[in-house]
């Protein structure tokens, strides 16, 4: 099916190349099966009881209660995996909310979020002195008439060699602005949906590792094909010693609490791992703002200090 692309600004093309967003054959959003996509679920009846091997007595979850379930969309499904063994054991299947994990891929919303994240922290510290701020230049250098030279009032005027700059950069200027809340919420939804659609999203029971050796984590991730960079998201900002020391050793594996989840990091890291507790929290918070009645944005006024 031919997709006509309108002539876009350069920034969109750069985003598409840099973040390498591409849609694999199975994840086309324009076909009839797109909105009710069934992931290929391997048959788990032949496997041995997992609880005995894994060492934890987790039941096989076949349904999870979703908050605000939409009437017109069916929930998506994902495997519940574990980090406690190197083998790719599945503990069960969890339902994912389709409004969060099956949103239409809005790359313009992704661009807006990434542009906001990279721009709002920038402060331009460049400052050029003007003729009033340059040292000296308060006195008339020579009399108005009689010397035969051009008339001047100050040696620091812009036409002089060491004079002040007329229209130079003036002081610290901040590029601070806030993208609208609902755009930022939609950005998270879109990023999570894209990660799920491209098979880069995995749900684990918890971030508990058996050892603190980074090699164990590295072997686990490589054997499962979980991409070069992995972002682990946990519920709280307190993690166990093993995962802390294991991820401390490898730069491309990073751990974050739920409140640190952002579009830039999700696209920067190839694979996204969510714990069950993190998944619950993310869904609850995002759905609160998706169905929110009346959120008033704070008005940020630009104030110059000093």
């Amino acid at each position: 099916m031919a997709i006509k692309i309108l002539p876009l600004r350069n920034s969109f093309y750069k985003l598409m190349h840099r973040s390498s967003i591409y849609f694999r054959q199975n994840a086309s959003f324009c076909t009839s099966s797109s909105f009710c996509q069934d992931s290929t679920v391997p048959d788990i009846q032949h496997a041995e009881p997992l609880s005995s091997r894994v060492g934890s007595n987790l039941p096989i979850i076949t349904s999870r209660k979703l908050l605000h379930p939409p009437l017109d969309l069916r929930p998506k499904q994902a495997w519940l995996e574990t980090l406690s063994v190197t083998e790719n054991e599945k503990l069960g299947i969890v339902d994912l909310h389709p409004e969060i994990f099956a949103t239409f891929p809005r790359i313009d919303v992704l661009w807006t979020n990434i542009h906001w994240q990279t721009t709002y922290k920038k402060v331009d510290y460049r400052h050029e002195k003007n003729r009033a701020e340059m040292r000296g230049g308060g006195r008339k250098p020579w009399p108005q008439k009689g010397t035969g030279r051009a008339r001047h009032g100050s040696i620091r005027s812009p036409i002089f060699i060491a004079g002040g700059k007329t229209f130079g950069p003036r002081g610290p200027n901040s590029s601070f602005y806030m993208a609208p809340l609902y755009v930022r919420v939609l950005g998270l939804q879109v990023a999570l949906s894209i990660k799920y659609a491209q098979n880069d999203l995995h749900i684990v029971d918890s971030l508990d590792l058996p050892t603190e050796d980074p090699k164990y984590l590295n072997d686990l991730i490589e054997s499962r094909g979980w991409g070069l960079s992995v972002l682990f998201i946990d519920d709280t900002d307190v993690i166990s010693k093993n995962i802390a020391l294991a991820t401390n050793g490898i730069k491309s594996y990073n751990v974050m609490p739920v409140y640190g989840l952002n579009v830039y990091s999700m696209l920067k890291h190839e694979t996204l791992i969510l714990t069950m507790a993190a998944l619950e929290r993310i869904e609850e918070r995002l759905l609160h703002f998706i169905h929110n009645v009346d959120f008033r944005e704070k008005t940020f006024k630009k104030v110059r200090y000093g």
Partner: protein
Amino acid sequence: MSLQRFCHFSADLIRKLGIRHTTAYRFNQFLREPQPDDIRTTVGGTPIIKPPKPTLTGVEESRDPDEWKAVLDLLPNPIVPLPPKHESYPTPSGWFPPQVPSAVEKYRVRRTRFHNFPIYKLTLNGGNRHFTAVHKVQGDIWAFDNDLRKFLTEITGKKIYTRVNEVCCKIWVRGLHLDEVAKFMATKGF
């Protein structure tokens, strides 16, 4: 991300190592979740809730949970609830729920958070140009555009000009055809 930020420190360890003023300690505030029974009544000795001045009318303070429930009932609901199930549609205001599943699979237009169609009117150039905007067009937007134009030309009898924004999932139709576009959405079951 520094390792210290995520490691669990006990209060004894913090005291022993004397790291009260480091970055790690500042995040100690997150290690203990505030409990519902933590009620701060003083800040450095001065009470937060001051007693009323004797010249003003006296106020009775209450921390009764049943009375608080009555207060919560009065507060507005921050979440838009699902519309209640009516006996017949459309409702007296003209609202009807979306068909599940919809009549078309190539594209979909989801409702807004207030369960309405995402159809808006735009006025540009100081009131000379009027557009009907349709947002949140998911799926094959070009097929939606073709079907919409066919429907509108039949109903209005005029030439319909549209502007398709594939990236932002929006369509602008020249002129004000809000009711006609809403009828088109209804026929598709959105």
